[in-house]
């Protein structure tokens, strides 16, 4: 504000911006109704008191609701009690807030005030004092320049350098200390392993899978795993679908991977790994709920829409002597989204897949 002492001195020509603007000063002070009319002031006072009264009622409501509403196991009663207690707390808090602001706005002084901003820079003495304090501290510790306290200096630096290891070592250790990414490429599926229902793990007969059926499948024995059950499930889940064999386009090199129109595809999206399970039986489309990638189950689960880049990996299936559906092998390519050495993992003997071009 003090820089505008010469408000009109820098009026310049019309096409140049002025160097300074005129300080418009404070607006004209307009008295409020409550300032000039005692009736209005009384009214405002009653309003504030009413708002505080509302808050008191809210408190009573909340406490009353807590003691009187009988919360049984019925969800309705729990919701009603929560609603009433919440409403009471809302009124109790809001009433105080509204009342206080209304009080300040209508009844407290409303003179405009100007508070000059002080200079940000400290005084010269203050600055010198602060620097001197730092110098004195370094001098006092004996770390600066002279090697009077060599032991302290060395041990401090060592301690500071080592301390982060206390965080980093357990963190990195918990990552598994295992950088073998080929694990990502394998699932539980083995030759002859039965396909079973999720979640109860009962085996599925080929005759059970009627046309248009969709079975959500886990590998046999998954529920009995002692450890890493969820990790294995997340990799191995499969959707088993039977199409009319006339609709099914058999993929080259996969002639014996399906059984009489029954196909099994990984449920893990090749985009970022959401479970793809929204199967539309009329269009044979399989939709991923996360980013709308759509796969055509009748045509090798190829991508027909959305951000996924690869078809869903197919699980080769067969039927065993008792009529149950079994896997012929593991998936022939890593399931799920891309990662840095996916193709390397695929090529090191895991796969004899002929699908490389997709």
């Amino acid at each position, binding site marked *: 504000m003090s820089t505008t002492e010469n408000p009109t001195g820098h009026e310049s020509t019309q096409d140049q911006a002025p160097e300074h603007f005129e300080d418009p000063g404070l607006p004209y002070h307009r008295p409020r109704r409550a300032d000039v009319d005692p009736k209005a002031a009384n009214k405002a006072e009653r309003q504030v008191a009413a708002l505080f009264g509302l808050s008191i009622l809210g408190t009573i409501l909340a406490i009353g609701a807590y003691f009187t509403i009988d919360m049984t196991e*019925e969800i309705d009663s729990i919701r009603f009690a929560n609603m009433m207690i919440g409403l009471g707390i809302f009124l109790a808090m809001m009433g105080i807030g509204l009342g206080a602001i209304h009080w300040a*706005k209508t009844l407290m002084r*409303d003179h405009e005030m100007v508070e000059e901003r002080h200079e940000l820079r400290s005084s010269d003495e203050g600055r010198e004092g602060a620097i001197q304090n730092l110098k004195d501290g370094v001098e006092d510790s004996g770390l600066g320049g002279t090697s009077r306290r060599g032991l302290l200096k060395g041990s401090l630096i060592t301690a500071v350098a080592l301390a982060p290891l206390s965080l980093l070592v357990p963190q990195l250790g918990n990552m598994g200390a295992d950088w073998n990414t080929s694990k990502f490429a394998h699932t539980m599926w083995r030759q002859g392993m039965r396909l079973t229902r999720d979640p109860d793990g009962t085996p599925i007969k080929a005759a059970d899978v009627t046309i*248009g059926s969709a079975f959500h499948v886990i590998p046999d024995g998954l529920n009995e795993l002692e450890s890493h059950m969820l990790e294995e499930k997340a990799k191995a889940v499969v959707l088993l679908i039977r199409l009319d064999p006339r609709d099914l386009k058999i993929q080259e090199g996969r002639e014996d991977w399906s059984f009489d129109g029954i196909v099994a595809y990984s449920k893990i999206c090749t985009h970022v790994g959401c479970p793809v399970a929204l199967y*539309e039986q009329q269009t044979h*489309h399989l939709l991923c709920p996360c980013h709308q990638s759509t796969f055509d189950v009748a045509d090798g689960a190829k991508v027909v829409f959305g951000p996924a880049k690869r078809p869903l990996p197919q699980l080769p299936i067969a039927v065993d002597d008792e009529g149950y559906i079994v896997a012929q092998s593991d998936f022939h390519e890593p399931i799920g989204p891309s990662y840095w050495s996916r193709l390397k993992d695929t090529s090191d003997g895991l796969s004899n897949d002929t699908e490389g071009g997709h």
Partner: protein
Amino acid sequence: MHSLARHRYHRAAPVVLVLLLLGLIAGIAAAVSTASSAEAATSADDVAEGEKLFAANCASCHGLDAEGQDGVAPSLVGVGAAAVDFQVGTGRMPMQASGPQAPAKPVQFGEEQISQLAAYVASLGAGPAIPTAEQVDPELGDAANGMELFRTNCAMCHGSVGGGGALTQGKFAPSLWETTPTHIYEAMLVGPQSMPVFNDANITPEGKRDIIAYIEAQDAGSPGGLRLGAIGPVAEGLWGWLVALGLIIASTVWIGARSS
């Protein structure tokens, strides 16, 4: 002369606008309703009557012999009475107009006519029958087991509590809250339209009843207050952004405004 525009600087204008906005949102949220129908009992004597009804109401698409027409309507041979009771009993059939899917609408036939149609279609080839009252009684089901089955087999399309959800190209999985237990059972059995079939070998009759018990349990409401259709973060986000932010903005305007 007091035109509306002159009032826009009135001190109550922000409050009025926020109230109007809140009213609009509440109106949209409330405007949801679906029709449902009573369950029909079948009788094998009605085949002849059903055939007449079929010829008059269904044959233009499904063909006089009910074998369907390519690209128009599927064959009804072997779909069973359950399919007819579901499709006609929820008003989906007869279809009003071709579109991505046939939505539920007011039922076009009486209970007796539906059972006659069902008897006729069932006579064309063996198919799933309409379930008995005991098979669909939610009282006899285990809602906890139903939840597990529902989450595995149904929740990806119908939402975790059966609120429904979107599919591709205009198709959608409908909300299940207004659907009768019999129709839910029949839908699992026959796999209408986009829905896959969940036959008794996949989900046992007891499992189906458990699922019905789980869906019926949702009628008790949600303990957390408004469900907003239970369709997930989009509805909840809209509510939070418009209602909660609207209230915050209204409070801010009021706090900052000069008292008169």
